[in-house]
């Protein structure tokens, strides 16, 4: 084997294994927004698993190195198990983020885990053979000549790269990728439109982990060794750096970033002549260039060399303009995957309330924000909820929608107790909220914001993942028609392909309402929908509310604009200091009441 071939095969295998890991990490970080600072642990776990599953018994090395298990499995099985172990570990790490933890705490926790694992692994001799790691891992292609074996390995890695790309694309492209990006942009808004954020994250951590395991196993199989020193938390940053330089959430960009940062810079410097007496200088130089490049890109081109693609839907806008349809009246409710609730039977329909809150209490610290509040929303009505600032209206909205867990009390939807259900379950059951401050998915376009809200898209399902576009293509077209219809109804077709973060405040508010309507909710909770809207948009919202009521939708409306409340609401609750003060079907009657006036004046 000539030296040239030797270097080329090494670089090719490094590129391939780095690429698989970087794609996996991009799926977590770039697409789903999980800052998994312990990612390199998963790569290391895959490598270690592969090593102990191919090394054979520890005793054969007569005390030279110690490790757990020590069996001799076929290479394919070892690789698959390495992927499984890494995926499992990925899920475990993902579980740390399960509790409603601020993303910065999640990042910190994972960083600590990564550092701690490094220290624990290198200190302990019995489990991982300490700092020296494992060696003498057999060449899986030993039957071939050295040259042939190296090239065969390159071919194997290349093939698995292609397979990995195909898998990753199933998650990054299409409706599933869109849903994941919505979780990345705003977790709470994603659960408000019925996305199971926890489930999606676990899925992503499992897939990202499996790819990490594959990468680790392939690398260890090639170099025949496993050393803890090469899997420190700094390596995670090298992968992140590749993703940032190349372009987040873009598989092509990640390829470019990996080739430039991990190969050209970090590997490239190894081929520079070393400085006599300072063997560490040249590798350090590589890291220094990596540091400078990362900062430069964060500073000047944060979107990377190949930025995230913006899907555009130009041709369809034209079609829709010529035949506007109203999704509010025409479109049938989409069937849900599982029975959401019993059909309104006689006894349920007996009570005309579709949403009931009974004696709900919620304290924040020592403040009783909601203090024994009881209210209900009648079927097919618009119910107003007014009161001075700090009365607890928004907390009531949070309790009703499942974002705030009440300390006491019951929430019923169609007579069914939903107090224990999280936000995404309630959204799927037809109880959808909007937020007081618009929470658009900034990295998605206007039309994508609407598309992502449609429940039970074929492209989001497990089957859709397996079968690909042929399974969900038609469904996607139908969804697109609905989303375009919604935009044309609110006169915003021209903004369809604009990034939501670039919309004006009023437009974002409209988007918030449209997105909620894409779920075709049974009960819509509107938290100050008119605030900050121009009179024109405001009247458009009012018209929409009236039209929606005519279709049988029920609404709970928190609003300070009393004119709108008076025109729209069939029934009004007045809250003050966490309780319902009075209720009436006529706002003008309430206005004359002393208690209401006092509440507003005293606040």
């Amino acid at each position, binding site marked *: 084997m000539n030296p040239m071939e030797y270097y080329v095969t090494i670089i090719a295998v490094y590129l391939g294994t780095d690429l698989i890991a970087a794609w996996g990490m991009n799926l977590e970080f770039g697409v789903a927004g999980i800052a998994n600072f312990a990612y390199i642990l998963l790569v290391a776990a895959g490598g270690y698993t592969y090593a102990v599953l191919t090394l054979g018994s520890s005793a054969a090395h007569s005390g030279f190195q110690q490790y757990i298990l020590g069996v001799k499995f076929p290479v394919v099985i070892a690789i698959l198990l390495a992927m499984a172990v890494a995926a499992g570990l990925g899920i475990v790490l993902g579980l740390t983020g399960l509790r*409603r933890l601020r993303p910065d705490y999640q990042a910190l*926790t994972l960083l600590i885990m990564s*550092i*701690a694992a490094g220290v624990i692994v290198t200190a302990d001799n019995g489990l991982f053979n300490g700092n020296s790691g494992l060696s003498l891992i057999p060449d899986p292609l030993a039957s071939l000549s050295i040259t042939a074996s190296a090239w065969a390995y390159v071919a194997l890695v290349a093939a698995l790269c292609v397979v990995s790309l195909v898998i990753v694309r199933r998650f990054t492209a299409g409706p599933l990728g869109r849903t994941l990006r919505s979780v990345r942009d705003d977790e709470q808004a994603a659960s408000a439109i019925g996305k199971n954020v926890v489930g999606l994250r676990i899925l992503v951590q499992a897939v990202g982990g499996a790819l990490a395991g594959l990468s680790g196993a392939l690398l260890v199989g090639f170099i025949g060794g496993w050393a803890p020193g090469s899997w420190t938390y700094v390596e995670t940053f090298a992968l992140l750096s590749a993703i940032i330089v190349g372009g987040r959430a873009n598989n092509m960009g990640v390829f470019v970033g990996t080739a430039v940062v991990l190969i050209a810079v970090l590997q490239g410097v190894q081929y520079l002549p070393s400085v006599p007496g300072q063997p560490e200088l040249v590798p350090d130089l590589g*890291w220094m260039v990596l540091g400078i490049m*990362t900062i430069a890109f964060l500073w000047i081109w*944060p979107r990377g060399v190949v930025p995230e693609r913006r899907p555009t839907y130009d041709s369809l806008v034209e079609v829709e303009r010529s035949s506007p349809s109203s999704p509010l009246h025409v479109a049938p409710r989409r069937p849900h995957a599982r029975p959401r609730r019993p059909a309104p039977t006689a006894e349920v329909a007996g009570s005309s309330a579709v949403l009931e809150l009974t004696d709900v209490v919620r304290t924040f610290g020592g403040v009783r924000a909601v203090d024994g509040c009881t209210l209900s929303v009648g079927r097919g009505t618009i119910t107003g909820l007014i009161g001075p600032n700090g009365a607890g209206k928004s907390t009531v909205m949070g309790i009703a929608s499942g974002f705030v867990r009440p300390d006491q009390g019951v929430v019923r939807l169609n007579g069914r107790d939903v107090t224990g259900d999280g936000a995404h379950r309630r959204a799927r059951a037809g109880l959808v909220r909007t937020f007081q401050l618009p929470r658009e998915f900034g990295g998605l376009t206007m039309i994508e914001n609407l598309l992502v809200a449609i429940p039970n898209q074929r492209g989001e399902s497990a089957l859709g993942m397996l079968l690909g576009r042929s399974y969900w293509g038609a469904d996607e077209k139908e969804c697109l028609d609905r989303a375009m219809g919604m935009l044309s109804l609110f006169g915003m077709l021209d903004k369809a392909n604009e990034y939501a973060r670039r919309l004006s405040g009023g437009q974002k508010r409209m988007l918030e309402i449209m997105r909620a309507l894409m779920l075709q909710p049974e009960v819509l909770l509107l938290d100050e929908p008119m605030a900050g809207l121009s009179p024109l948009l405001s009247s458009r919202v009012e018209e929409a509310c009236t039209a929606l009521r005519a279709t049988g939708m029920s609404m709970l409306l928190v609003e300070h604009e009393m004119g709108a409340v008076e025109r729209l609401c069939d029934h009004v609750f007045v809250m003050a200091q966490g309780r319902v003060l009075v209720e009436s079907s006529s706002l003008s009657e309430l206005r004359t009441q002393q208690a209401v006036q006092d509440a507003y004046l005293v606040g």
Partner: protein
Amino acid sequence: MRLFLESVGFGISAGALISLAAVGFTIQFGISNVLNISYGPTLTLSAYLGYLLVLAHVNVWLTVALIGAAMGILSVLYNRLFITPLSHRGGGFVGVIIGTVGAGIIIQFAITLIAGPSTFSYGRQAGRSVFFLDMVFSVTQIILIGIAVVAMIVYHLLLTRTQLGRGMRATANNAMLAQACGIRTQRIIDFAWLISGFLCGVGGVALAITTVSFDFSLGTTFLIYVIAAAVLGGIGQPYGAMLGGLVVGIGSQVAGTYTSPAYQDVVALGLLVLLLLVKPTGLFSSGTAGARTLAQG
């Protein structure tokens, strides 16, 4: 019992230093929501700059003060010219972490480039020993513990007794609201970074004084303890960091004594990981930090 007290004594010495540095680290998170990984290499930088002064026959305690002041000023500039613009440009919390890792790598490399990979020593003799119960302290250690205690008390008085300190607490709690209340948050933030940098400088030199010899990896290794202490105490909470530093210092020394020195870090970090799994917001946090108030939507 004797063995135990002895290791507690070592732990207090180690813990005082960790506390000092951890408070500086945690202030940055509390006031600017920054996880500054370059804090470790900055500790190293302080130790090397201090070494230059000691070489020039500056008194070692004066060196501590001078480096503290210098690093304080550098720290304000670092935040103004690097951290804040980066968080506006490069995509938020994670982007800034990555940026600080990059900056840390650059600082550490620059040190290696100039000073080389060899080890250095301030060459201080351990001096007279002081016995208390069964604990043994050198005079240097006593002075360092004293510096740490005084720094903590001064910081406590600052937070509770001065307008500036109240402004800092308000800004850490809710910067926007603080600004709306007429607090000049930019000044507060500058001041917080000044203190943080000061503690970092003092910590770095103190660390170099107590270790027999040090090299370019001094601060990076120490950062693990610093982060552990800050997280243990609830990141962003200065009092938590003080206590966390002591717990990590004493815990790791005692664990090292009763198992083997190799397990010193393992025990400390293993406990931290367990804690994070159970209570990710740290031991002494108020509990509200983990879950945002979701009511406001």
